[in-house]
């Protein structure tokens, strides 16, 4: 039995509907997971991996 932290406290994952997604572009890789109790969103987590420093060019222009 897996427990999920929700707005109602810890709940058994089997009682919830799980949705997952992902997004990627030049700047980031993002994954997210949602748990729904009926039509109510009770948990959402997101994980963003930064792929590069978006400020590099600006810093380069200032320093160089």
């Amino acid at each position: 039995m897996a427990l999920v932290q929700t707005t109602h406290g810890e709940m058994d994952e089997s009682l919830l509907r799980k949705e997952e997604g992902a997004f990627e572009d030049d700047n980031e890789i993002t994954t997210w997971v949602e748990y729904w109790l009926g039509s109510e969103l009770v948990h959402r987590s997101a994980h963003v991996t930064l792929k590069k420093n978006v400020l590099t060019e600006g810093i380069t222009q200032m320093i160089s």
Partner: protein
Amino acid sequence: MANTQAMCTSFKGELLTATHNFGASPTRAGSTADTFKAALYLASATINASTTAYSATNEVTGTNYTAGGATVTNATAPATSGTTAYWTPSASITYTNVTLSTAFDTMLMYNSTQSNKAVAVYTFGSQTITAGTFTLTMPTNDATTGLLRLA
């Protein structure tokens, strides 16, 4: 041999360790690394290169989120490679069991040791968190992808 005009790579690295001071202030009394923090900002905020210091204005608010954000883990000293100086936090930045209901898309890294002065702004796709965890995982710490680079 020929001489080549350039900014010395060693100098770039030394900028990241406050070795040089072209002005009269501030005078650095300590020799230990400063504490850096990461604050999250609403998608409706205006945080950019003109931001000079941390402000609570338009910072996210919500359950288990502490104003000012999370402390950045700094266990890896700045380094240089080629002609680039770089530094990256040595661990992911994690906000655990938070509820952040209003969309946010920005992290401001700032120096909490030096009057909360701003360091850099990082944006990402707009997010909300509900009784969950928001994690920012760092890129590879090298001259190509390091989070803070002086090229």
